[in-house]
């Protein structure tokens, strides 16, 4: 009741607690790496130094960290947008006509369960350059978006469909005015998940891309040289950007879908 108003804020607020958690994590990391004195576990400040070096001087080939970030982000967005363009309409279509989905399940579902990584040999042979990356990421992002959209269409509240039907509305009206707005939040969630998986696939995609720019590529370069601190920079940057994009999605979701009773964050 009166207590719920400030739920979760406590003395420091969520932001404060997160900063605290992060600081403790870095502290533990520092302690462990200092104690172990291993070549393979760099300290936080070593990683920080590498990060700054990579930003200013670039990697072993002189390619700047900023450029790596740019290239990877570009590829992911390409794959993601392609996944949306194909996944959302297809999901809506199959959601509205469940028989189509049910009769093509034997083709769609097995493909869904082939991990993007397993496609790599085929992709190397069949595609070149940018399309290699885009395809792998597209594979990762497509299915969450497609299935999420499909399921959402199937689970539209039947009463919301009955209302216009009882007034004699045409099918198109119902799709435009009821189905689409109703499924939009779930489509958005599917997109968010799809984007996340797209980021998961960046390593796999860039391993076979053949270009020398990109965060995944960068990590691989340093993997050969066993320069752990630079590898960690790559990992952290990938993780951080993924986190940021996710938070942006959630922020937009909260704003746009104000009418929803509760947003489920996953």
């Amino acid at each position, binding site marked *: 009741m009166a207590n719920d108003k400030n739920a979760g804020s406590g003395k420091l607020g969520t932001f404060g607690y997160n900063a605290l958690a992060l600081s403790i994590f870095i502290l533990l990391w520092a302690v462990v790496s200092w104690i172990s004195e291993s070549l393979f576990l760099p300290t936080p400040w070593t990683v920080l130094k590498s990060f700054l070096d990579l930003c200013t001087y670039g990697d072993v080939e002189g390619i700047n960290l900023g450029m790596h970030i740019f290239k990877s982000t570009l590829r992911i967005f390409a794959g993601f947008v392609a996944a949306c363009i194909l996944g959302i309409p297809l999901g809506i279509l199959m959601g509205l006509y469940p028989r189509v989905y049910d009769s093509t399940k034997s083709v769609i579902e097995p493909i869904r369960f082939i991990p993007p990584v397993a496609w790599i040999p085929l992709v190397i042979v069949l595609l070149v350059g940018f399309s290699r990356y885009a395809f792998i990421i597209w594979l990762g992002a497509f299915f969450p978006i497609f299935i999420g959209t499909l399921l959402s269409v199937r689970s539209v509240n039947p*009463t919301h469909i*009955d209302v216009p039907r009882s007034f004699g509305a045409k099918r198109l009206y119902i799709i435009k005015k009821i189905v689409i707005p109703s499924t939009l939040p779930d489509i958005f969630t599917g997109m968010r998940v799809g984007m996340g998986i797209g980021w998961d696939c960046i390593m796999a995609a860039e391993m076979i891309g053949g270009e020398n720019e990109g965060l995944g590529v960068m990590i691989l370069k340093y993997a050969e040289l066993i320069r752990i601190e630079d590898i960690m920079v790559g990992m952290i940057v990938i993780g951080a950007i993924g986190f940021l994009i996710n938070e942006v999605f959630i922020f937009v979701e909260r704003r746009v879908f104000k009418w929803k009773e509760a947003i489920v964050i996953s």
Partner: protein
Amino acid sequence: MERGDRDFLGGSMERELIDVDMSMKFDNLSVLEDIKFKVHENEFLVIVGPTGCGKTTLARLLGGLSKPSSGHVTIAGEDVNPKIHNVSFVFQEPSCIPWLTLWDDISMGLEIKGADPQSAETKTRIKEVIKLVGLDGFEEYFPKQISGGMKQRVAIARAYATKPDFLLMDEPFGHLDAQTRYLMQIEIMRIWEREKKTVAYITNNIEEAVYLATRIIVLSKLPARIKAEHSINLPRPRDLTGPDFLRIRAEITAQCEVVK
């Protein structure tokens, strides 16, 4: 089929609007059997029966949302069809569309029927109907901001907005608590007296039925048949604890079969 012990008012005087003569099966399960009755213009017909006896199925058939397996439900000889006839439905479940403001929700029926949402005429009608159900001031609210009782008022406003020939209400107050329910019953009566429409009202609450109805049809349990019909001629507003009211109520309660 038994008849009530009163004269059947409205049979010859009011025009017959809907003719029902049908049965309904789902796969092999017979839900409604030999349902035969007529709905007269401007009457407040209440259909009662035990829970799960197919009342909602009957409501949907009357409103043209489903087709009977055999027989017909017709208005002037034509099968009831929401695309042709002006029928409004108030559902049992909360039916407010979550992403629409109350204003937009209420105008949905008019929009579908071809009215221009921007025209002065439409706007006047919507304002009228909002006032009718007592929701002035809430036009820009979203469903999540209002109570259950208010949501049903929106549904009622939306149903009335199109000036329907026939209004169907399927246990509209079923999900409300007893007190809100009492208030809404009084409201429905007030609204109905203001804008007299032909209403078919489904409920499992016999007190509510006797309070509201000009005529009551009692359904048996599955497979549902018409068990009895009563004309209620008590003056309005009706006294829930008046001796006549209680007597009729007890009579109908005895007829309603308990699903054990």
